[in-house]
């Protein structure tokens, strides 16, 4: 009905946070700290999350237009036409929509963890040098 609104809400918040960080620093390149640990900046990671949220929500919104659940005229959502459908729509946003946003965020957290791990992985050559 309008489950894509939950990821859209998260996308708006994350984009605002990312833009606020952008105002503070332009740095998106990976940095190596004094202990030799390579870190990917949070701003760059947030970009991945916003792209997944906005992109996914956009295609999902297209599906709702396809099914005639989103219209070009007020109130834009057909489920808003009566109280019963509105209640069902809100329930769907609270269940399916929130689960969608949660899954995307969980997968993004996994991607960030994997990316940090890949950046700090030693190549075969580096392992040989360390052994020698």
């Amino acid at each position, binding site marked *: 009905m309008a*489950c894509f609104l939950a990821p859209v809400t998260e996308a708006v918040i994350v984009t605002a946070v990312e833009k606020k960080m952008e105002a503070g620093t332009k740095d998106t390149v990976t940095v190596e700290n004094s202990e030799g640990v390579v870190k990917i900046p949070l701003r760059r990671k947030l970009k991945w999350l916003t792209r997944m949220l906005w992109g996914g929500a*956009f295609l999902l919104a297209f*599906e709702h237009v396809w099914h005639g659940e989103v219209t070009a005229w007020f109130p834009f959502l057909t489920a808003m036409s009566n109280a019963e459908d509105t209640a069902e729509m809100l329930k769907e946003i609270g*269940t399916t929509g929130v689960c969608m946003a949660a899954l995307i965020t969980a*997968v993004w957290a996994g991607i960030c963890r994997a990316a940090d791990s890949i950046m700090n992985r030693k190549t075969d050559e580096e392992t040989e040098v360390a052994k020698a």
Partner: protein
Amino acid sequence: MTLLITIYAAVIATVIWYRRKDDSMKLGILCFMYWGAALMWLVDAFFEYFELGAEYFTPSGQDMLNDTFLGLAAVALGLIVWVVRLLVTDPTGSVRRALKKEG
């Protein structure tokens, strides 16, 4: 079918991104868009499965055809968004060069 088609599109886009020579084609956007949609449709599929049970796996021919159409249209829309963004941002300066050229 929509979910399956989007997953295939996401995997193909990711493989092409992995094999890229440089980042000029901005394939990352396409990957994130398809994976985001695929994950969202996966949640949708779970909820539908809990509602319908085994019936979920035996859709009618018309439903399957409609879902296939929708999946292909969603993939096409994703490609349009990506190519428009590529032309507008013009990372290699190709559009600018073409516009500068006389004739």
